[in-house]
């Protein structure tokens, strides 16, 4: 404590470059991307009129039928996801979801047992995934603690991200 600090990097937050490629439409992934805007709108209109007569539970149940979450409802934690999401949608507590401890814990445990229950790459093609791994990193300086976390010899700085991203 007490020493003067100087800032390690001027701008540790790189925003540009990548955001461009992200905001651009990716033509080849179009076909693998589930429903088009039209079909979503059609769905919505179809539900729209009848909704008023439905109970909270029926509405939530109907929401579970929406195409965009079908991926989430399949797979090893699909049923846990459905239970937790349904409970959350129906929650009326001031801290929304606070009645859902049991289904939340079940989903949490399932994900811990199946770390790839909801992989991020399902909807992405391989090119995108590979491209992401080549992203250059900033020259990041950190000051680690003196104790246990340090190793004696210097490690060569790896300038490419090879770790999984998120």
């Amino acid at each position, binding site marked *: *404590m*007490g020493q*003067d*600090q*100087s*800032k*390690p990097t001027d701008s*540790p*937050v*790189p925003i540009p470059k990548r955001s461009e490629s992200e905001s651009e439409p990716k033509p080849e992934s179009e076909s693998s991307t589930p429903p088009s805007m039209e079909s*979503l709108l059609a*769905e*919505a209109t179809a539900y729209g009129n009848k*909704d008023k007569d439905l109970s909270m539970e029926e*509405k*939530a149940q*109907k*929401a579970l039928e*929406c*195409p*965009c979450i079908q991926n*989430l409802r399949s797979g090893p934690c699909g049923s846990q996801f459905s239970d*937790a*999401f349904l409970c*959350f949608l129906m929650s009326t*507590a*001031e*801290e*929304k*979801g*606070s009645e859902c*401890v049991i289904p*939340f814990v079940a*989903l*949490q445990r399932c*994900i811990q047992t199946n770390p790839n229950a*909801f*992989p*991020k790459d399902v*909807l992405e093609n391989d090119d995108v995934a590979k491209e*992401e791994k080549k*992203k250059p*990193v900033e020259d*990041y300086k*950190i*000051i*680690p*603690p003196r104790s246990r*976390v*340090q*190793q004696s010899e*210097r*490690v060569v*700085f*790896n*300038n490419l*991200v090879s*770790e999984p*991203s*998120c």
Partner: protein
Amino acid sequence: MEAEMNCNNLPNFLSSFVDTFVDFCVAGIFLPDPPSPPLFQTSFPSPDRLIAIGDLHGDLLKSKQALRLAGLIDSNDRWSGGSSTLVQVGDVLDRGGQEIKILYFLEKLKREAVKSGGNVITMNGNHEIMNVDGDFRFVTPSGLDEFTNWADWFCIGNNIKRLCDGSEKPRDLYDGIPSSFPRVKQEYAKGFRSRIAALRPQGPIATRFLSKNLTVVVVGESVFVHGGVLPNHVVYGLERINEEVRDWIIGLKDKVASSLVRGRNSLVWMRKFSNEVAKDCDCSMLEHVLSTIPGARRMIMGHTIQEGGINGVCGNTAIRIDVGMSEGCINGLPEVLEINEKSGAVKIRILTANPVYQNKNDSGEIKEGIGLLIPQQVQVEA
């Protein structure tokens, strides 16, 4: 959730479900709705009751004991302080393994307090600034674990959102962060990556929690700051200081002036008024500073551990409240400062868990400006 649910807006519902689920996995709590608009102001009128609490350093249990001592939380850890104001003078981070949990807990109290007319003010200490800067010298292995766990759940949450067509694609959490660091064992690299991702400017934890911190705040007659305020800071402008630090934390500005938050004369590092040896405190400088801040009569600081407990010097115009309560510090007994300046006469008390003061029950209240502050023992529930 006011809007009718349909397949069009389902991604919004899914997103709020995921956020709630991730909060639950990371901190084990459910947050009430945030107050709107969010409070970000530099001075506040005297509240009915004002409680100040010192450095917490990753020790959630001690933090709760201190809050309970102050009567601000009940046995279910809910805000029970009514219209009281709580000021936490910074240094939630480092030296312990429950840093994120404390940030969440204070956020929960903020939201609960607002509903009952109270207020919770959190502040930047030097350790908050250091972590945003990537200075991890006081990080513990358990602190790395907590951030790794946070990052894992945060990423799982992002993946779930992305699996539902229509959810916005979040920026990669680790964007630009290397996979290894000089002088760091590889087994800890993930912890540091997570910590950088969370706490760098614009990082999710920095943005969500630290950006709401003030660096200096005036509540009634009391100026709160982690280290201390010097004349040049007053000239710079207290409001401007708060805004510039915040803008740096949220990534709106590239830099923040080192004279404010780095170095021995900055607001969060200085020890001019908190030196344990009373004669080393610069009372005349303090008097000058206080005279330039309208309505200010005392400065309340953390940062320097007071082994003998909360105390005042310079005729109680400098009150030092860091008791090193965290297990990662000196494992000090929780103590909090209570100020009541509503009804004319100012009453300042020290509420302490120290059993030495057990028999001095009602003699604790003293009038401002008379001699020493006398601690009053309050039972802490187990």
